[in-house]
């Protein structure tokens, strides 16, 4: 049986752990709110961009001069996976989920005989993937130390992808990230970036489509619109990842706080029992000592 002093020490240490996890939960909750509103504010742009792309893409996709950002290289051999994870841990299964999802995906693609390259965004995923797939990693980007993810950060990632496409380093590009479904659920999702999946707006809206005039020509607009669209998709993934991370962290810390509470209760009970046992033992010793005299 542990001594009273050791028990007291453990109770105190668990109490201070609980204080820390509680504080982290509060911080995560506050940051979650900010991250969520940032994600929401970015939505209108993405929506309108998708609408424009739908009307433009439909008219250009069929032509042979369509840009590779839209239709890809026409092959399906080299896959680039852009894996987005958080820069920090202590968020429950958040990073592991994406990591496992990416791992399964890589294994499946390699089983089909494809070549896989991985571009890792975020520090946690990089360390996991580097251990599992040291050969496939072609680059890693991290926004460690940034207070707030801006659109420029996403643009640098997108530029990197575009440059790789121009150099012919891959045929198909897929983005893997944690989609923010609600505060308690984040779903690891794969989203194809190149070739761009055309939103099926033209199929959904049955009414006569307005015929747009383009200035300058469609191809030229697309040439500027597509890189932008890529950046926007990455930006959205980064924001969702961010919001999801704080949601997950909040949850994990909430659980940790609760577990610490339970542990304190158990330890306190144990402590009291031990204390009583000690007192009883001492009493018995005194009484039997007195009887012996």
């Amino acid at each position: 049986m542990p001594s009273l002093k050791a028990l007291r020490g453990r109770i105190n240490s668990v109490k201070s752990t609980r204080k820390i996890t509680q504080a982290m939960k509060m911080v995560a909750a506050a940051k979650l709110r900010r991250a969520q509103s940032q994600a929401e504010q970015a939505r209108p742009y993405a929506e309108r961009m998708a609408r424009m792309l739908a009307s433009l893409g439909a008219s250009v996709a069929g032509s042979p001069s369509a840009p590779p950002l839209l239709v890809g290289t026409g092959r399906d051999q080299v896959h680039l996976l852009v894996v987005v994870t958080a820069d920090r841990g202590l968020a429950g299964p958040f990073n592991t989920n994406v990591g496992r999802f990416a791992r399964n995906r890589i294994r499946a693609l390699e089983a089909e005989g494809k070549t896989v390259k991985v571009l890792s965004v975020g520090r946690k995923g990089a360390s996991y993937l580097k251990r599992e797939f040291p050969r496939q990693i072609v680059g890693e980007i991290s926004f460690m130390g940034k207070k707030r993810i801006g659109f420029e950060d996403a643009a640098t990632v997108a530029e990197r992808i575009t440059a790789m496409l121009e150099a012919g380093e891959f045929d198909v590009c897929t983005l893997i990230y944690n989609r923010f479904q609600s505060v308690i659920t984040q779903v690891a999702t794969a989203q194809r970036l190149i070739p761009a999946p055309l939103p099926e707006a033209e199929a959904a809206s049955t009414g006569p489509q307005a015929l747009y005039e383009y200035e300058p020509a469609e191809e030229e607009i697309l040439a500027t619109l597509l890189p932008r669209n890529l950046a926007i998709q990455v930006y959205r993934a980064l924001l969702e990842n961010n919001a999801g991370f704080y949601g997950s962290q909040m949850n994990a810390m909430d659980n940790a706080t609760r577990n610490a509470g339970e542990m304190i209760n158990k330890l306190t009970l144990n402590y009291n029992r031990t204390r009583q046992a000690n007192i009883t033992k001492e009493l018995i010793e005194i009484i039997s000592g007195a009887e012996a005299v």
Partner: protein
Amino acid sequence: MATFQLELVSPEKLLLSRQVEMAVIPAAEGEMGVLPGHAPMIVTLRGGVIQVTENGQVTDRLFVGGGFAEVTPERCTVLADEATPVAELSRAEAETRIREAEASYAAAAGESPERQDAAMERLLSARAMLQAAQAA
């Protein structure tokens, strides 16, 4: 007077969404005035100032650094790379931006024409920003 819905969005947020009478947008091939009932168009924008008119008066002037606009008879959506009210522009920032753009243009001299074009556009956009800042 008749109005239409003007929306100005940047990647970071929705900046403006309201009924206006007229908007002048800096399209790539010249300034373009949009009135209600405009023919549907999709245009690219260069760096310049969007001028919003309500009740016969210019009520808002916003600088955009480039982007796209979609015009339909009842709506005009501007997707700006960045947007700032003209009154908040700073001349010093515009000047540093011009210097940066000039440097990147010089650096792009030996590269592909697309890159040169992109650098040129940045430079023009920065110059437009300075102009707008000076006019304010």
